[in-house]
């Protein structure tokens, strides 16, 4: 993780982004700029395009039109190296816990002598000390997700995307993940996270993006969006109404 606490997080900007399939608009975001000081949480019902937007921002999906810039630089393969993503269901390599972290550190060309202490630091950070030699697949859901986040952070990303990382976790495991996310944010990592959990948005977000049917219906400071939403869709979603 980056050590410079005062460093401002990376700015992400989207222009004219659109994806359609068989005539149906899946994503249509004319302009979106994520430059707030803390975590951005993307909220919205299923099928709103939250995960699709996240994948576009990360470069995993090529949009039909539009572009994504990070710090004013057009996102391409090289730039993607400064981003990391954690998925809803952690995908861990069929290796030990330590080997999962070693895999990304090796890809960063970190010398072997530096890798071992770095792995120990990361495991301590994620509360996984003593589990280094355990097969990653035998971890509990919360531990597996923590390892996935540690592996993402081992890349020293400027931006960390998280796609509903706590949707299958209990409150205690969720709390540990949220602490890790806040710590990363405090260290200058741009956090962009998708969630269905309004309580989580209250706890983590400094900025909220509300989505509905492939469109951004509202974007603003967390308190402002959560307490006095401007759009009807946001209001209904936040009131717990069934938004489809």
């Amino acid at each position, binding site marked *: 993780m980056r050590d410079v606490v005062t460093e401002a997080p990376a700015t992400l900007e989207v222009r004219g982004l659109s994806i359609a399939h068989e005539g149906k608009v899946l994503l249509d975001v004319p302009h979106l700029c994520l430059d707030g000081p803390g975590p951005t949480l993307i909220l919205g019902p299923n099928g709103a395009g939250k995960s699709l937007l996240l994948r576009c921002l990360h470069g995993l999906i090529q949009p039909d039109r539009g572009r994504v810039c990070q710090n004013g630089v057009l996102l391409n393969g090289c730039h993607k190296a400064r981003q990391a*993503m954690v998925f809803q269901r952690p*995908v861990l*390599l*069929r290796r030990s816990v330590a080997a999962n972290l070693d895999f990304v550190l090796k890809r960063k060309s970190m010398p072997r002598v530096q890798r071992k202490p770095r792995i120990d630091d990361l495991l301590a950070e994620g509360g996984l000390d003593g589990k280094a030699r355990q097969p990653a*697949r035998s971890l509990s859901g919360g531990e597996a997700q923590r390892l996935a986040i540690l592996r993402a952070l081992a890349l020293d990303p400027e931006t960390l995307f998280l796609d509903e990382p706590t949707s299958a976790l209990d409150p205690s495991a969720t709390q540990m993940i949220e602490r890790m996310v806040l710590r990363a944010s405090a260290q200058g990592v741009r956090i962009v996270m998708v969630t269905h959990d309004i309580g989580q948005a209250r706890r983590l977000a400094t900025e909220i993006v509300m989505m509905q049917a492939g469109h951004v219906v509202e974007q603003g400071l967390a308190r402002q969006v959560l307490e006095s939403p401007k759009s009807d869709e946001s209001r209904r979603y936040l009131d717990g109404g069934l938004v489809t």
Partner: protein
Amino acid sequence: MQEFASEFTQALSLILEGDSELWAIVLLSMRVSVFAVLISALIGMPLGAALAVARFPGRRALIILVNALMGFPPVVAGLLVYLMLSRSGPLGILELLYTPTAMIIAQVVLVTPIMAALTRQVVEMLAEEYSEQLRSLGVSRLASVPVLLWDARLALVTALLAGFGRAIAEVGAVIIVGGNINHVTRVMTTTIALETSKGNLALALALGVILVGLAVAVNAMVSVLTLRAEREGVRHA
């Protein structure tokens, strides 16, 4: 019935007394099949993994072809290798016909499609699961091949053992290209066929017992590894 019991007793004593002719045949069989399986693995596994991750026109047709070659008739494989290695064939100059090397080549022809097809199946399912994560970590399609092969290692050992099972039990192809020459190219299966026709049932039975024992051992190993792989979530096929 009494005759069978007597032949069987003789067969067991051949095995237990360490009959040199019998064990020479067993060792040659093992040598030929182990080499054939290793070479097949070196060709078939990367080929299978490449078929699993690469996207190119004709890929589907190639997969169908590789799958179909799993059932390639051994005598036809033997005939093709014979034509290649015979004096008038394109590789006749190497003078490999009726040598253990020719038998290895024939077994490689038969086992490689098995390796490639099983590897493709296992790696493709793993690649589906890993795809987004590896791309997110900046791993290219090509660079993902060794990652996937390593992570599918337990399932691939199963493929290796399945290939060995096919190779060691092979008779049609090796008899054509090996010629079943005593002390040179006589392996377990070809000896069983020959000795049975000669009425020397004791040697044939002894080799049969060893062959069945090997088949059971290989299958037991496959079962244990499959179980382990399932427990670790490695096997998908």
